[in-house]
């Protein structure tokens, strides 16, 4: 038992509730938000340290032993994602202070951001399938509100699609849980894993597994990404950045968790399928990223490509490839947030999404330009930066195991990613300067600071691989060895 495990959920939940009482006092809201996120960072780092020393930590809520009660499980994989979530949220919120506008802030913006964090943290930390569903809903309900908050025409149109698709997929999730409960009689991850290992994963369980994969694939934008570009284009940039960095990652996490811990017996069927879904996602996402001249859409399609790439690691299913996926997952959360925030500054300065209408911004905004350059290279996976090691390990795993097509598509789409973001860079920052300082639609005051935090982290993650490696390897080890997870949950 370790009550520290609940704190990543509890702190944002209580903060969100507290902020309901300070609706009009925006300054109070901002201070409380900042303090709570800093506190959350400290708690998470403490937890990571504890897990790295003592192994996976669990908390039986209400004191009921698993599998009878709900259990929260903090293993290294979940905690690394929790930490990345906190940092990304912190930077997006700092950025949001300057850009979102008072009207939205007065309508419970920070409350819902905190509630969304609760859902995300809960999804990462829970050890129970139905509880995962509940936390998905907490996250989704908040994200519905964050998409539509402000009530512009585009927001209402896209939020309707987003809500309908997610309600359908949530219902499918519930049905899949029903089937699984009817077959196995339990919903605790560890207990499920044990029972399926005992009876063997027959055709029925594999079917349910693929059903669950469909659900998570909709949430993670794995092939079923038709809702994503529209939904990520309409909200204010600070919120879009949070969505891009966090929401699909929860779906990815769910796929990783279920297919490494529970349904790992028929890898030839399920994991290959995941791999090919990933390949299709990468190709289609790559086409989308190359095709558009709209900055926000290019960035949104880059989110999709990354989802496909991360799945290769799971399809290969060796410790090296899984470690690569974990690296890439963490890197992608940070860099996607960074790219969206920088893109937001560019759109804010020029007042347009269209790349053809902007140029020469490097003259007045050198720091912005070079940070974007850095982020673009990190995204494509250029060696000293953070995207490199994840891609390297994943591709190494894929080639070792003979998944040549997946590796090749991974490499080709890297090129497409690089092309699409360099297109933004070259169009936006090079060329004639059309925009004098007086013509700019807003100032960059205070906006580059949160971007700089993320940029430094991205570089740090790339240069400091040696330090991060210990933690990532521990995370990959738990993913590769379900018994460690089961022991941690069921033996306490």
């Amino acid at each position: 038992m370790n009550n520290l495990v609940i704190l990543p959920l509890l702190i944002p939940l209580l903060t969100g509730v507290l902020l309901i009482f300070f609706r009009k006092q925006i300054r109070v809201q901002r201070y409380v938000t900042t303090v709570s996120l800093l506190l959350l960072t400290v708690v998470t780092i403490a937890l990571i340290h504890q897990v790295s020393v003592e192994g996976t930590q669990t908390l039986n809520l209400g004191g009921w032993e698993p599998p009878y009660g709900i259990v929260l499980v903090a293993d290294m994989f979940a905690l690394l994602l929790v930490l990345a979530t906190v940092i990304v949220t912190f930077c997006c919120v700092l950025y949001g202070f300057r850009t979102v506008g008072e009207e939205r802030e007065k309508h419970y913006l920070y409350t819902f951001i905190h509630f969304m964090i609760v859902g995300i943290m809960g999804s990462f930390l829970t050890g129970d399938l139905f509880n995962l569903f509940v936390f998905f809903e907490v996250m989704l309900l908040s994200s519905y509100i964050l998409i539509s908050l402000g009530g512009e025409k585009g927001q209402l149109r896209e939020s309707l699609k987003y809500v309908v698709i997610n309600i359908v997929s949530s219902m499918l999730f519930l049905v899949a849980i029903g089937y699984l409960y009817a077959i196995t009689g339990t919903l605790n991850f560890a207990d499920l894993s044990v029972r399926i290992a005992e009876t063997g994963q027959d055709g029925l369980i594999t079917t349910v597994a693929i059903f669950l994969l469909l659900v998570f694939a909709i949430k993670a934008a794995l092939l079923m990404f038709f809702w994503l570009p529209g939904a990520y284009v309409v909200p204010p940039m600070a919120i879009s950045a949070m969505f891009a960095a966090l929401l699909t990652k929860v779906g990815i996490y769910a796929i990783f968790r279920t297919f490494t811990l529970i349904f790992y017996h028929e890898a030839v069927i399920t994991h290959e399928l995941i791999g090919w879904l990933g390949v299709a996602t990468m190709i289609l996402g790559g086409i989308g990223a190359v095709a558009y001249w709209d900055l926000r859409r290019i960035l949104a399609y880059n989110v999709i490509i990354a989802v496909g790439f991360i799945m290769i690691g799971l399809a290969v299913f060796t410790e090296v490839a899984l470690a690569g996926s974990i690296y890439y997952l963490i890197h992608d959360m940070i860099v996607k947030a960074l790219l969206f925030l920088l893109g937001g500054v560019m759109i804010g300065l020029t007042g347009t999404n269209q790349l053809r209408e902007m140029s020469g911004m490097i003259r007045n905004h050198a720091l912005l330009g070079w940070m974007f350059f850095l982020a673009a290279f990190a995204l494509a996976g250029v060696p000293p930066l953070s995207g490199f090691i994840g891609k390297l390990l994943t591709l190494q795993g894929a080639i070792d195991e003979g998944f040549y097509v997946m590796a090749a598509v991974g490499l080709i789409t890297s090129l497409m990613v690089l092309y699409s973001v360099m297109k933004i860079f070259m169009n936006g920052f090079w060329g004639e300067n059309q925009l004098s300082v007086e013509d700019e639609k807003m100032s960059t005051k205070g906006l580059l600071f949160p971007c700089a935090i993320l940029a430094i982290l991205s570089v740090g993650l790339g240069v400091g691989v040696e330090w991060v490696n210990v933690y990532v390897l521990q995370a990959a080890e738990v993913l590769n060895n379900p018994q460690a997870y089961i022991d941690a949950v069921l033996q306490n």
Partner: protein
Amino acid sequence: MKTNDVILQTITSISAFIILAFGAYLFFAGHHDPGGGFIGGLVLASALVLLYLAFDMETVQQGIRIDYKILTGIGVGLSTLTGVGAMLLGFPFLTHTFEYVDFPFFGEIELATSVLFEVGVSLAVVGATMTIILSISEDA
């Protein structure tokens, strides 16, 4: 044209109390019989909705001066804090306990901390329901 709704208002002023009492009954029955915080809260909210239907909004708001959004916040906060209480005493989050207490007139009654949790649920349900209904009706 103003309709004459004296019958509706008279019946409402009596039946609202019956519904409120029933809601309270359902709430307290929850531990051993069907009922509980959620359904109790919904029934309480239905009494309030009936008041809003029978009388106009200004009249009811003069009588019941509650900001339902705040009420929701208090409810969620209370439910969470019952879990935090267990944490502070060194138990796992959300651990609940109970005690049999002898009251002078009523006899032995079981007091459980999960009732506090349910109070939070009820307040959140009442607050959320009323917020939804009132915000829809305000602009119409």
